[in-house]
């Protein structure tokens, strides 16, 4: 820790997302100090190093050797999350990793294993993940409401999240994007980890997953850009998850049905239909063939989203290092969304439902095969990037 009582954090990967973190760490957060920036793209590393008067590194291994480095924020392309996080943890350096945790569950498990090992040596080591969506008022409100048990036993959750419209220019903007070798997946791995994390945060993990993924259906890419998934939970609940990067205007609608009512989130509004008594009890007890359960409708007030909340995750991460305060999301929780995404793809490849947990080895081998047999030729063009438009 630096003398100022701030955490010395280096940002590894200063692309779209990393550059936002650099700014937060250097200028916004009271408990962090930007120690260095690191990017394999020298020009990019140099640019941010000059702007914030910190050293530039082009190889993360060199960075991790530096004395006085407390923590790293990893915002590289997804595959690199794994070796960088593992190496940092082994050196006792705290890690905050961007989503997704890794490309596939095998890599994710290696990372959480490395954390467990590191903890034996460095008991206070922190390993967080950037699930800032959990902080958004409407998601937090839904989580609180679900945890209160007011919806009773859950029957169905349907999430249509097709408002991730991306142009071909977006995919052509980086060489690694939307390739098996460079990114390891498409909409599930890039745009949807937040949604999949919220899904498992709200409902827990399903028992069975059926996935239907379409590869390069609407874009010239070799990974999935439209996905439908059907989840079956042990408690009888079913879930639907539908995602696409090709729809305009796109939909973001989450509907949660429990025996005591229905909660719908759309356009930033949470509507609640609260049953006066359980619909499941009514099925059993009613003497009427055509019956209805009386319910009250209300809108749960939510503040509009005014700001990106990544900085709050970073601030909490630094607090955890300084004071032992809890993380907003531990990296091991990232295994769940990763498992969901991998399971949807594997189910789709195999054409059958899968029971969780999935065999990480089988998925990794499938991925290797996709990389090996890839005949996709990536053409990279600079695209106009207004990154502020990318969040939902």
């Amino acid at each position: 820790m630096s003398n100022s009582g701030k955490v010395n954090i280096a940002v590894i990967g200063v692309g779209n997302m990393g550059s936002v973190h650099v700014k937060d760490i250097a200028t916004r957060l009271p408990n962090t100090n930007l120690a260095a920036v690191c990017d394999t793209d020298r020009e990019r590393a140099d640019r941010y190093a000059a702007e914030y008067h910190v050293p530039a590194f082009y190889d993360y291994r060199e960075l991790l050797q530096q004395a006085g480095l407390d923590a790293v924020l990893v915002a590289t392309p997804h595959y690199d999350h794994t070796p960088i996080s593992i190496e940092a943890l082994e050196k006792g350096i705290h890690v905050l990793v961007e989503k997704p945790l890794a490309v596939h569950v095998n890599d994710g498990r290696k990372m959480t294993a490395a954390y467990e090992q590191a903890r034996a040596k460095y008991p206070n080591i922190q390993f967080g993940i950037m699930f800032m969506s959990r902080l958004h008022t409407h998601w937090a409100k839904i989580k609180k409401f679900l945890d209160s048990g007011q919806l009773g036993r859950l029957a169905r959750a349907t999430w249509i999240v097709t408002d991730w419209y991306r142009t071909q220019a977006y995919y052509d903007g980086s060489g690694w994007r939307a390739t098996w070798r460079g990114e390891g997946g498409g909409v599930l791995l890039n745009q949807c980890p937040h949604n999949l994390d919220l899904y498992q945060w709200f409902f827990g993990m399903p028992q069975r997953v059926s996935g239907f993924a379409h590869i390069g259906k609407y874009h010239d890419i070799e990974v999935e850009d439209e996905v439908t998934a059907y989840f079956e939970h042990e408690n009888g609940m079913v879930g639907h998850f539908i995602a696409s990067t090709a729809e305009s205007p796109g939909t973001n609608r989450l509907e949660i049905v429990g025996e005591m009512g229905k909660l719908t989130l759309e356009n930033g509004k949470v509507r609640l239909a609260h049953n006066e008594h359980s619909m499941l009890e009514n099925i059993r007890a009613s003497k009427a063939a055509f019956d209805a359960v009386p319910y009250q409708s209300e809108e749960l007030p939510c503040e509009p989203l005014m700001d990106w909340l990544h900085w709050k995750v970073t601030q909490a991460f630094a607090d955890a290092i300084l004071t032992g305060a809890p993380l907003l999301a531990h990296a091991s929780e990232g295994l769940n969304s990763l498992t969901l995404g991998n399971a949807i793809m594997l189910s789709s490849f195999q054409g059958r439902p899968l029971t969780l947990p999935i065999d990480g080895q089988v998925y990794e081998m499938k991925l290797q095969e996709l990389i090996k047999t890839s005949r996709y030729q990536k053409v990279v063009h600079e695209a106009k990037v207004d990154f502020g438009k990318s969040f939902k």
Partner: protein
Amino acid sequence: MILASHSSNYGERMDKVKLALIGAGGMGNYHLANIARMETVELTAVCDIIPERAQTAAEKYHCRAYTDPQTVLNDSTCEAVLIATPHYTHTTIGIAALESGHHVLVEKPISVHKADCERLIAARRDKRLVFAAMFNQRTDPQYLKIRELVTGGELGPLLRIHWTLTDWFRTDAYYASSSWRATWRGEGGGVLINQAMHNLDLLQWICGMPTRVWGHCRFGQRHQIETEDEVTAYLEYGNGCTGVFVTSTGEAPGTNCLEIIGERGRLRLENSRLVFTRNEIPALEGIRFSKSAYDMPPTQEIVFSFTDSGGQHAEILENFIAAIQTGASLIAPAEEGLHAVELANAMLYSSIIGQPVNLPLDGFIFEQQLEKLIANSSFVKTTMTEVERDIRKGF
């Protein structure tokens, strides 16, 4: 039997169409009330296998009572029949009626399974006979509008369809009210063949038929029944469009939300409000030609509100009669009823075999599957006699 003249548009007063109702249960009685209000129809007979039911209705509506459909067809003076019996008998009675030269209006589903649909449709050898199905929701202005926008090309090529249709809440008392209900032997299915049949018809009427169906049916999940009461189906269409159809009779208040996405925007129908969010640039053109990574086509919102729900059952009846009297074109020709049954069958069959099913479905294979379900059924049905029924709440 003399067929109604198709040349009656010369201004002379048309004769009333002599109609018999077969099946005087919940729906049958509902139709009787509509028939009684129609000046173009003369109700000649009511037939129900339960004599008291036939008798009560016949007394109320001043016509003859029958207990055997064949006798109605042989003896009564009716020229048209409305069939509102349990589903399996739609086929047998429908075939008998068509073969004896009667116009037929059949309740949905036109048959329980595809092979029966084909048999029933083939029985209409005399093409002068009017053969219609009770797809009353086709008269609903909101669905008419959607169909116009989709088939007229306003929405462009379709990308995705989603229908969450879980507002068909039914109690155990409902299922216990008739012994045939929600059994493989008596009804041949659950929510798909019964309640969602309307919506499956609308789906194919608006969007055409998928080429592949993946069904996930849950049997007796929320009710004491042996057939499906919760379903998710994933559909793939020839042009690459995908669809998800979710239905249940176990949810209250339930949802009825239909969303159809095309290149030119999104249609969303919920709570009688249809919103068309129209893209100024088609979505896929935006993808191809935009120079910006996070660009979105500008959109414009058009809202359609609907205050009435159309003529419904009465309109289908009137249309059937008009088709007999004046050759009016049918709102719902019975032949088209095969598609919804095929969709329901495919969802069920896919679910049972745990694999996707390519359409067209092999009707014979499905029929065998259904027979297996009937033969293997160990379900003991409890029926209750004291069930309150207000069928209007059922729509």
